[in-house]
């Protein structure tokens, strides 16, 4: 089977101005909304919250409890079984748990529910860990920058880094606009996007590098870039689509806890694919138009 029997001839680089504006707009809206919402975009992993311990008079199914709470809009909770009896639960919530207990009592009329304790708890991702995570990510991005500068060119490295940061910001925008909260799973999703985005960009840069290599003089960089992007288009689409298969399954069937995780990754994969072409490659071209230089044409 082959969806791409002929090599396409799209002019990807021609309309780069429009895509820069769209990306910039989404990024700015996302950042603005994030600042306006402030701590409300963070889950209790970051803000802390309330821990309630409940004991049911008989054994209940954890998915039933979650289902009932999910219907009432309490999807952002941590529900954990305690002990071996199957009757005790820990519920962690951002706000106090009184309403939740009320809801549960209404839905389990035959079961008596006793509250063992209700207390305020600190965030699991406190200030120190947050700082260390951010530092690790920044250094990881620096490592990527140095490697690409070494294997390709400095301009390509800068473009790839901007594209990666762009993907993270655009994904953040979608997460915030959709009213979802950032928890520690979403952080894992962001890291995955970072990896995917860089991988996708490097693959496309590799073809550009290869097509530049045969030339003694780069008369028309736009043509070389467009040709490279068209040649790799079939791979770009197939890899993107296969990734979306898995994430689609997780999004629709993975249950409420993993839903935001899958959502974040889907947005990230789409953005990561888009940005390799319309941000990373386009930045190198835009840079070339402003300040022409000699592309590295010999092998490295």
């Amino acid at each position: 089977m082959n969806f791409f029997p002929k090599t396409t001839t799209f002019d990807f680089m021609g309309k780069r101005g429009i895509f820069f504006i769209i990306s910039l707009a989404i990024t700015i809206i996302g950042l603005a909304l994030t600042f306006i919402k402030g701590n409300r975009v963070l889950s209790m992993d970051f803000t802390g919250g309330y821990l309630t311990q409940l004991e049911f008079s008989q054994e209940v199914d954890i998915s039933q409890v979650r289902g009932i709470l999910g219907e009432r809009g309490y999807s952002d909770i941590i529900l954990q079984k305690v002990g071996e009896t199957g009757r005790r639960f820990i519920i962690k919530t951002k706000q106090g748990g009184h309403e939740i207990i009320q809801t549960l009592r209404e839905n389990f009329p035959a079961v008596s529910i006793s509250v063992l304790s209700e207390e305020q708890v600190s965030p699991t991702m406190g200030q120190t860990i947050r700082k260390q995570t951010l530092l690790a990510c920044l250094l990881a991005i620096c490592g990527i920058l140095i490697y690409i500068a070494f294997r390709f060119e400095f301009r390509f490295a800068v473009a790839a880094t901007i594209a990666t940061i762009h993907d993270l910001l655009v994904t953040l925008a979608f997460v915030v606009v959709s009213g979802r909260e950032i928890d520690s799973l979403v952080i894992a999703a962001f890291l995955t996007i970072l990896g995917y985005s860089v991988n996708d960009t490097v693959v496309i840069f590799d073809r550009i590098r290869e097509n530049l290599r045969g030339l003694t003089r780069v008369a028309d960089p736009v043509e070389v870039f467009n040709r490279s992007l068209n040649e790799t288009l079939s791979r770009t689409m197939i890899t993107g689509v296969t990734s979306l298969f898995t994430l689609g399954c997780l999004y629709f069937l993975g249950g409420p806890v993993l839903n935001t995780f899958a959502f974040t990754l889907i947005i990230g994969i789409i953005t990561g694919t888009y940005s390799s072409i319309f941000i990373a490659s386009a930045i190198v071209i835009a840079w070339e138009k402003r300040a022409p230089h000699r592309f590295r044409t010999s092998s490295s």
Partner: protein
Amino acid sequence: MKGIYIRLFVILAVIGLSIWGFWPPQQKIRLGLDLRGGMQLVLQVRQPLVESKIPTTELTDRTLEVVRNRVDSLGLAEPVLQKIGQDRIMVQLPGVDDPDRAMEILGKTAFLEFKMVEDNPELLKSAIAGTVPEGYELLYQYEKDAHGISKPSVPLLLKSQAAVTGQDLSNAQLGYSQGALPVVDLEFNSEGARKFAEVTAANVNKRLAIVLDGIVQSAPVIREAIPSGKAQISGRFTTQEANDLALVLKAGALPARIEIIDRTVVGPSLGRDSINAGVKASLLGAILVGAFMIVYYSAGGLAAVFALGVNILILMAVMAYFRQTLTLPGIAGIALTIGMAVDANVLIFERIREELKAGRTIGAALDRGYDRALVAIIDSNLTTVIAAAILLALGRGSVKGFGLTLTIGVLANIFTAVFVTKVLFNLAISHFHIKKLHIG
């Protein structure tokens, strides 16, 4: 193609070794708290014996950080630590093998001091009788009796003012004395080294006691000034005890005493139901991707799916060998690995198709396709490994778990996507005299 059987043998050996490495998976693969649950401890923070003016909440915060360091040093991935109310800490530990040892490590105050010994026998005698001179204190060295219970045995009169404390340590690790007994090797920071050098220079031939949590560990005689900032705690340690003590010293002293007031088993923090749903959805996703690869690239897709399987096998074996814990962020790392493995195969096959389109023979298209795709695969995979390794080295908690599986997975991918599938293709061509390559 010469040497094809050697290559095939290498692949089979890797598969065999990997399966042996993590079989049976229920025992060898350790799951994190988010996936399996573990033990929950509630710690009560109490003011230290020495009067301190730190407010309780701040004391709890500081204690929490030290406990976190200690939990991290136990090598447990994804512990959950939370302050409850003002003065309690909830710790959830994934798959702890030995809860008593965990409690021992978490609860130890680990306040290390070096104090000069006053060897005047008269003063010591009157101190034992009850009149301890101003500026001195009476402490004991402990010894285990016939039943293995530690009892105070040797009294020592020490200067109350510590010469150096554990706060000036820069490192502590397990070592062995000349008699091959386990000891803890200490290294001071520059401030500690300066103090230590001063004290040892001024007190040659006197004794310096090493005191841990108010118990004298040993009281060696200072033979000469020690300017190197290095010291050693010898006691009657087992290797495990010396190792744990080094861990605890490195993680820092607890600013407060803690007491375990509750201990119970907890279910996975994600909830059993979410995990089941997640596993089902992921399996379906994997089947869909595999089916797509086989339909789209026929025999090539089959080879790719096989290579993917080998990749996962290697990843699991490495995780099992280094006794690492698998967490949900770790699974996200595996998902990205799978994505990149599929991508590597797509790169290769699309490239071979291009070469075939350009009119090359099967063998030539295969060789050229692999050669050219190789550069792209290595560059993209190495870039990812660099990022993943940094996350593994510097990240904490979920970030670390993610970096771990991604680093292993992508390194395995360079082997499986490039080497394994090519051997399969070459084997097919040389053995079955295939004229048409079934990747299109």
